[in-house]
């Protein structure tokens, strides 16, 4: 057993950390406050490899292992939750299925463009006004084959990156009869006729990551835009979420780490009753708990990634890592505010934003309840 990163993984980590520290973290407050996407930083990510983390080198990607990819998202989360979410969704939710299920032609068409940063981002459209946790029963967006085309009609909700994307992977019902074999994933260019993207949702946090409702009105795409197999959309989606959960877990660890670092610093600087508050046991315990829980969460995320890159099953491990890391992150961020006292509640200090950002992590890509359901199903073989 070896807990150390390889030289190469460490070099990747150092690179992303340096990049995030100078290009992403300094503007995190501003992009949230102004609800704008950080294109300045993201524009520089393509050449580094951050926009094609697990895309094969043959298609212009970085082709890093799952652990390195998780570390990259963790470091981005340490810098800025909004930017990290956008990049995590782009890599894990959108490019992932193209890499895994795409035909050579589909890969050729989309991967070099999106991994290099010459294009914009990509997104995944699962959730609908009436379907979130329950995709199998709830998805109403229909795709009907007509000659050489699919005609797509329906409404999607909460699409991260929709307005800053070149392409959407859309989960559609292709068999009106329903059931687990009635859904398919279809690749839809974001500028296709009939697509209307709603205004950015007004959210509690992550305001630098635009989220949109998207309407599909008789959107016509070529039949060959079917991604993977017809009727396998649900299975492909659930697999994609397994991968994505490692990313969200890593993102939550990064957010927690950032809040924790702020809290440790503040506890040493702030004085009350004649000494730094770090001298009080109540503060020390919050710091000790945070450090302990972050370490446990990080190890769980890395373990899930390690299972993945070694070709083992990781559905349960990814769900556990996501569940634990996101709930730890919320606790750590909550206590980071507590340690800051009144200043922690102020927008002048980063912990306020990080707390709002991390709140999503127990909801997106499967709520904590759904993670527990997935874990229990594995244990009880349901």
């Amino acid at each position: 057993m070896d807990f150390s990163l390889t030289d190469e993984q460490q070099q990747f980590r150092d690179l992303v950390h340096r990049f995030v520290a100078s290009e992403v973290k300094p503007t995190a407050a501003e992009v949230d406050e102004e609800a704008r996407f950080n294109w300045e930083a993201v524009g520089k990510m393509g050449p580094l490899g951050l926009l094609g983390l697990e895309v094969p080198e043959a298609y212009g990607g970085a082709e890093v292992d799952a652990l390195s990819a998780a570390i990259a998202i963790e470091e981005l989360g340490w810098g800025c939750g909004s930017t990290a979410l956008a990049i995590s969704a782009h890599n894990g939710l959108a490019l992932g299925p193209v890499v895994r299920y795409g035909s050579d032609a589909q890969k050729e068409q989309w991967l070099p463009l999106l991994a290099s940063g010459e294009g914009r981002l990509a997104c995944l459209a699962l959730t609908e006004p009436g379907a979130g946790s329950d995709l199998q029963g709830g998805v109403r967006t229909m795709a009907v084959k007509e000659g050489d085309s699919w005609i797509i009609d329906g409404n999607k909700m909460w699409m991260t990156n929709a307005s800053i994307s070149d392409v959407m992977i859309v989960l559609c019902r292709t068999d009106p009869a329903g059931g687990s074999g009635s859904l398919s994933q279809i690749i839809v260019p974001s500028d296709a006729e009939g697509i209307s993207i709603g205004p950015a949702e007004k959210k509690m946090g992550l305001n630098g990551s635009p989220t949109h409702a998207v309407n599909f009105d008789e959107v016509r795409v070529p039949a060959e835009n079917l991604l993977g197999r017809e009727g396998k959309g649900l299975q492909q989606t659930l697999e994609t979420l397994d991968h994505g959960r490692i990313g969200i877990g890593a993102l939550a660890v990064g957010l927690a780490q950032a809040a924790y670092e702020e809290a440790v610093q503040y506890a040493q600087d702030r004085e009350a009753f004649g000494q730094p508050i770090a001298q009080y046991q109540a503060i020390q315990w919050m710091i000790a708990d945070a450090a302990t829980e972050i370490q446990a969460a990080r190890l769980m995320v890395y373990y899930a990634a390690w299972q993945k890159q070694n070709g083992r099953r990781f559905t349960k491990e990814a769900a556990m890592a996501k569940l634990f890391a996101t709930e730890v992150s919320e606790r750590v961020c909550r206590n980071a505010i507590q340690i800051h006292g009144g200043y922690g509640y102020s927008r002048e200090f980063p912990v306020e934003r990080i707390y709002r950002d991390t709140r999503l992590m127990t909801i997106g890509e499967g709520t904590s309840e759904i993670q527990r359901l997935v874990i229990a199903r594995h244990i009880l073989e349901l």
Partner: protein
Amino acid sequence: MKVVVCVKQTPSTTAVFRVQNGSVRWDDPGGKPNVVNPWDEYAIEEAIRLQEKHGGDAIALTMGSEESKEALKTALAMGCTEAVLVADEAFEGSDTLGTAHVLAAAIRHQQDVQVAVFGKQAIDGDTGQTTIQVAVKLGWTPLTFVSEIKELDPDAGTITVERLLEGGKETVSSRLPVVISVVKEINEPRYPSFMGIRKANRAEIPTLTAADLDLDAGSAGKAASKVDWANVYELPPRDTSVEIIEGDTVEEKVKKLAERLLAEKVI
């Protein structure tokens, strides 16, 4: 076109130094103790840009120890096409002149180099002498403090650059080959990439020794150096004290501060 970029590995900007048995040691509690000389990142970037524009090779060259390969790996990860380490026990104790002698021989060894790019200075030695000394040894034109390469024609063998001087800018043309040193205004160094890091880790970095460069013992290292480090010692700690300037208004505080600074002859 063949471009060489000379890269020095230096202590990181946050390294902590101490003197032990007459030599300087350092460590960086917060990170890696050694980095590519920050000024040389601009040189690497410019060399890569020249290579991207004119084709050929961008070769990173470092004189140093086995550990300095790290600096060369960074150069490769950023996009240099080759890297060469110049290392030999005989080079130990080189001053800038000794270093320049070896670097010049290593540049000549690459054959047909048209441009040798240097940083403005090394953040540790800080002399900025090496560039000129290399140019003199090679008999090439030195163009220092370059802030822009305005024109470069490898076939015609000409180059025009803008030099950043204290009082302004100067445009100079020369025939190739040239030795140039660059200032930070010239470009924005790129980050290495994941792909580059992987390539760098797999790359063979050859080592050139004194014998490879036909250098005899007298022309490198201590023997060839003019500078002698007679006594290396730690600076005595400075006496400092803190004084808080009190006052009812900002104006009053500023006035008092200015008076104190004048009295202390700081301003």
